[in-house]
């Protein structure tokens, strides 16, 4: 279907679609019920975390099991900054920078190891993070956690809190997605893809696999920090439980289910992370773990490429097409 691709390339089509989406995002928070708003805001929070994981895993092919650590770090930095009464913009910058710097330091060491060793190092992060968060109780509030209610809607807006919080998530999350999309589609994205494909080839082309792995890991940590900030905007509370290693695995599953190496897939992954527990709660609160496992298996059996491959599956069924077209479209979707 080169026709679809051609139309999608036309600037006016892209502008119209973008315009419709932006208008929807501005209008919807005003008309949706409160619980829908908070749910969408939560999806935004975890979509950014999954996006970061996608940069390092989906695009660069390095296994990271520690993404939740950076989310938690960002959340703790935000909570601490707010409790100290710092300017919120400064808090936001720190919530991005501190996880990024920690990620950089870890990556400088871990990326040298290569292969599964990186995964082992990243497992250590949440495992160390939980007792650390309990121990450093002067900064973290210990195992009782920390609250920070800084995201109430200002008077002049006339908005409800949930609407205001959703707008913050949409703005910050939207910018994160836009920047990441540009990054992975440009020079860096191509470099990531080569590092993922074959490190030796990357090296022979003058692309240092080490440097790009460190870069991808640092960006993932930074996005984790952004997600942590948004977590505090929406949830307004963090505790050592936030850093639980299990959440890291759920984030990973969300990324695979949404679609590895896909921007839209990250969004779908965030939706999976938030909606599936709510859905299983509606079916039977006593069986949530079993149902979530069943859904995970079902999606992976039917859609090995993740939810993002669903439209492709439809198209393949309706119009017979040869493999080269599919791979071209895949690039379009990203």
């Amino acid at each position: 279907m080169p026709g679809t691709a051609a139309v999608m390339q036309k600037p006016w089509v892209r502008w119209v679609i973008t315009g419709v989406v932006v208008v929807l995002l501005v209008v919807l928070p005003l008309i949706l019920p409160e619980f829908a708003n908070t749910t969408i805001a939560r999806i935004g929070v975890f979509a950014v975390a999954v996006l970061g994981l996608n940069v390092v895993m989906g695009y660069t092919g390095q296994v990271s099991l520690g993404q939740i650590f950076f989310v938690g770090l960002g959340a703790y930095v935000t909570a601490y900054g707010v409790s100290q009464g710092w300017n919120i913009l400064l808090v936001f910058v720190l919530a991005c920078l501190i996880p990024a710097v920690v990620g950089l330091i870890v990556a400088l060491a871990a990326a040298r190891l290569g292969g599964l060793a990186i995964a082992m190092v990243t497992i250590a992060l949440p495992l160390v993070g939980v007792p650390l968060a309990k121990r450093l109780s002067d900064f973290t509030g210990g195992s009782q956690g920390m609250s920070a209610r800084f995201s109430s809607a200002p008077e002049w807006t006339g908005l409800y809190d949930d609407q205001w919080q959703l707008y913050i998530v949409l703005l910050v999350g939207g910018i994160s997605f836009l920047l990441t999309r540009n990054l992975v589609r440009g020079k860096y994205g191509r470099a990531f893809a080569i590092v993922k494909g074959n490190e030796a080839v990357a090296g022979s082309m003058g692309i240092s696999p080490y440097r790009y792995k460190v870069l991808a890991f640092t960006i993932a940590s930074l996005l984790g920090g952004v997600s942590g900030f948004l977590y505090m905007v929406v949830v307004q509370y963090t505790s050592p439980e936030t850093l639980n290693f299990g959440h890291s695995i759920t984030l990973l599953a969300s990324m695979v289910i949404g679609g590895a190496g896909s921007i839209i897939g990250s969004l779908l992954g965030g939706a999976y992370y938030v909606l599936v527990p709510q859905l299983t709660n509606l079916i039977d609160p006593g069986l949530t773990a079993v149902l979530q496992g069943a859904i995970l298996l079902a999606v992976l059996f039917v859609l090995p490429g993740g939810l993002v491959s669903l439209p492709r599956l439809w198209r393949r069924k309706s119009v017979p097409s040869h493999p080269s077209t599919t791979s071209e479209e895949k690039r379009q979707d990203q």
Partner: protein
Amino acid sequence: MSTHRTKMRAISVIAGIGIVAMLATGCSRGDSGGGSGSTDEAAAPSPGITDTTITLGITTPLSGPTAGPGTCTVAGITAYFGAKNADGGVKFGDGKTRTVEIKALDDAYDPQKAAANYDQLKDSVFAMTSGLGTPTNRAWREAAIADEVPQVLIQTGDPIFSDPKQSPWQLGFVPTYINEGQAFGDLLASSSGQHKVAILSQNDDYGKGYVEGFKAAIEGKDNIEIVKELTYEATDTSVDGQLTELAASGADVFFNAMSITPLVISSLQKTQELGWLPSWFLPSNTSSPTAILEPGGAAAFPGVYTVSFAKSAASPAFAADPDMVEFLANLKEYGDYPDVPGFPHCSWSYMIGATLEQVFAKMTEPTRADFMEQLRTISGFEAPLMLPGTAVDTTKEGQPAVSSVVVQKYNGKGYANADTFG
């Protein structure tokens, strides 16, 4: 064809967002939302209550490592009100009889999910209750205050929920860690002999609470001396080093504020190996006769003490107790819990049901505000399954609904009340 596809794409985006909105079960904006819940008509019913029903919400871990106790937090209260509903309902102070419905959601001990569950329930339930866990209750404590939604009789020992200044819409149910440590300290201080105490505690608010309560109770008592005090981390897999050091102190009483089951068992064994045989104090949640004391060989010690306020369902001593028989029957019939519970949380949750019934009987207006007012007026109420000497008392400022515990001593099979030390 191509433009059609583009249109389809745009439509699918819109549809996708629509699905998200629909999945997030709709609740209309209207009166609630954003915390602007002030109403002109004082006696207008709060959400979740009609002339014939009242709905209570629970968010608690029903999956994951804490699912065992978590399931109990729902089963007990469901069993209690299930039996009441079968008899026609619960009588309220306004003369109406209502049936009680329970909406329970799983949070898997994740604070983020607990907060989401609260958001989902707050407009359709009258009050939130019985949920287990400190972080999972803290996550939405401030939101509940802002929305003026009761978060009461919850199962956490965190004292913040029982401080009406910090938590006007909250009240804890179970005794705090401080209450427990204090009860043992009082018993020890009242004994006639001289005692040397060795303390081992978990290095977090759990261990600190126990030690704080214990020290407060023995302050100024000449017959009690703390000879050695050590801590360990919740992540430690062995405390052999600490035990060896404590054994050398020659203490005859060992106050062990430990929350990790395997560590308690190995501590019981290690101290015997070392030939150190003191009297023990263990917290209420790590003193199970069958799961901990028997495998640890606790019969070798002169005494193992713990505290409790509920009759133990597993104990043969209460097998014929009428409260217990009724409780187990209700649990089976209405609580969807056919086994004899191995966790005290089932009994606690049942008592929460009984306490709520007392509050309902005093409520003259179907409002959350009146509920909170009446909630703080219950005193001297002996809920079913409570041990003699303990009672629900919500009138003590800064204390949870149950702050009285009795010290018990292990007798080789189960526990019996210990009025004196030794």
